[in-house]
């Protein structure tokens, strides 16, 4: 089974990935699947009805708000980085986590590199498929490197201004 890096309780673990990411022109395999937003709209409810776990993959131009009514039924929302400098998925993750209160896995897919790991975690991502060969250790080191952060985000880190107040 393929592996992915998952954030669990402030730690990173290597986990088996039970999900198959399915392209629109591909037949659906058995088991847990991640499908495009378009496919989810036409087949999603049937898939959920079959008792399998379902995730949706959103491209950067697809608004996460469109999933608002279905979030309770979804196990994974995968947000695509077609190029790592396309930063729209950061906002999608932020909205998904902070505003829509999604409790499932927010997975970063596509051009996912360790240089962005810290930003991803802060925006609410919890699952990572590194495209740069980063190991669990690389990933954890990238995220933990920064001892302080200046701003509030979608994670639970205490921003510098609050740390200062506590002194």
């Amino acid at each position, binding site marked *: 089974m393929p592996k992915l890096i998952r954030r669990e309780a402030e730690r990173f673990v290597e986990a088996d990935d039970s999900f198959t990411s399915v392209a629109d022109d591909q037949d659906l395999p058995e088991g847990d699947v991640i499908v495009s937003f378009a496919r989810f709209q036409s087949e999603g409810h049937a898939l959920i009805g079959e008792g399998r776990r379902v995730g949706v993959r959103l491209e950067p131009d697809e608004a996460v708000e469109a999933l608002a009514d279905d979030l309770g039924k979804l196990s994974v929302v995968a947000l695509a980085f077609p190029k790592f400098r396309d930063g729209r998925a950061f906002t999608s993750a932020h909205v998904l986590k902070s505003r829509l209160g999604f409790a499932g896995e927010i997975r970063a897919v596509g051009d996912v590199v360790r240089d962005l790991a810290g930003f991803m975690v802060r925006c609410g991502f919890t699952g990572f498929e590194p495209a740069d060969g980063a190991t669990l250790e690389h990933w954890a080191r990238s995220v933990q490197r920064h001892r302080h952060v200046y701003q509030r985000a979608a994670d639970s880190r205490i921003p*510098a201004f609050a740390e200062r107040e506590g002194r």
Partner: protein
Amino acid sequence: MYQYDSLDRDILADRSAEFRDQVARRLSGEITEEHFKPVRLMNGLYLQLHAYMLRVAIPYGSMNAKQLHKLADIGRRYDKGYGHFTTRTNLQFHWIKLADTPDILDELASIDMHAIQTSGNCIRNVTADPYAGATADEIDDPRVWSEAIRQWSSLHPEFSFLPRKFKIAITASAKDRTVAKAHDIGLMVRRARDGTLGFEVIVGGGMGRTPFIGPTIREFLPAHRLFSYLEAILRVYNRHGRRDNIYKARIKILVSALGREAFAREVEEEWSKVGEAGDLPDTEIARIRGAFSRKAFETLPAQSEVYDAAVSADPGFARFARNNLKPHKRQGYTIVEISLKGIGETPGDATSDQMDVVADLAERFGQDDVRVTHEQNLVLPHVKLDDAPEVYRALAAAGLGTPNINLISDIIACPGLDYCALANARAIIVAQDIARRFADQDRAEQVGELKIKISGCINACGHHHVGHIGILGVDKKGEEFYQLTLGGSGAEDAAIGKILGPALPLDRVTDAIDTLVDVYLRERQGDERFLDTYRRTGDAPFKEAVYAETH
């Protein structure tokens, strides 16, 4: 100067270590240049025509003597003994080796400086009034808000990979010295009738190939709501700004496509969702305000005998005083502008030795405070009138006494084809030639305030759109040509200049400027500036004179 605390220092150290790691991965070949590029750009490192260029942030153009000494030192050890001050009030080193950059960043961190977000599609160095804390008419000190924005925007997890770069300016004075209306966001400090502090928020100004004077999307934003409102603007931009075409990716294109009202509505709607959770507590603003070192002003008489005597005895100082000294809020003090536009020199360049001279003067006479202006000059904001003659003599001895602030030879120019991979034409040589033509200071003073701004390509780093006279380098079948625009302004009366006519070859540019000046002197009424005369007469007399000669 804002005094760093241990958290600020830790953040720089961690960022520096991260970059060292990234450079090592690049040098070992583990990552490709394609992968490395956006990473290095997040830290101000460009690959230019001849070498790497490192752009060091001078946050809101403010530094102390120790920092300037260190920049001089880095210039000597890692570059060719000089640096280039930019229109974003940063300092560029143009001859850097990739392998040296981690050490340079550690050197910078040792004096609380960095190169974070001086390039890349992120929130860049904030521009603030270079006279902040020294000018009489400011409503509040814009540096406090600038520092708060620096911290908020540094390594922002959501807004570091925007559609395009993002620049914010803040001014608190009626006289705008920041070009606020040609920024992605311009913040003008306002005070409501009931005394509440706030900002007028201008969004979507900019230069480049599609220049805009930004519209106001909110007349009054209470100051304590600034950060939630910035978050709302940035989120709307990050989601909806274009990413299919680099030339249409700035927020100005989004604002102009949606229209001011529709864009403002989107922001307000997002803002209502962000709520006060996005704001910085007042206590943090107060802490930042307190972390700016207090100035120790003495109670001085308005007149200074030393100053008056020097004005009478030394015509050189008298001229410097007329053009480079500006009124200070405290009597007996003055703001000293130091021109980096020596006649025939490269605008914005300073040698390491010159930086040391300015740093020494700041220590001895200027309360340890140095500013960089977007017009690529330096400022000692707090000098006693009694000390001004000695400061002038020291500057003049170092080749920094050029008395031309706001005059025709105080030219903004981008590095142009001499350094930049994007340029179509040289800019520096044009600036140098014009400055030489107007080297006669009497004539320059007779002409008065005239802002010439030169860009070597359509990206407009030399701000040509907002020059009273703008000059844009274009490439015509491999030859350098220059298009003139008239009537622009980057001040409170901001305007985009209008193209005068067909582009001119390099060897005709200075003559054309001369002609424009002659027309102005002929048409001028009363104490009109060049810009005022142009606005009254329109371009007809100017156009006629410049192009008559070609027939």
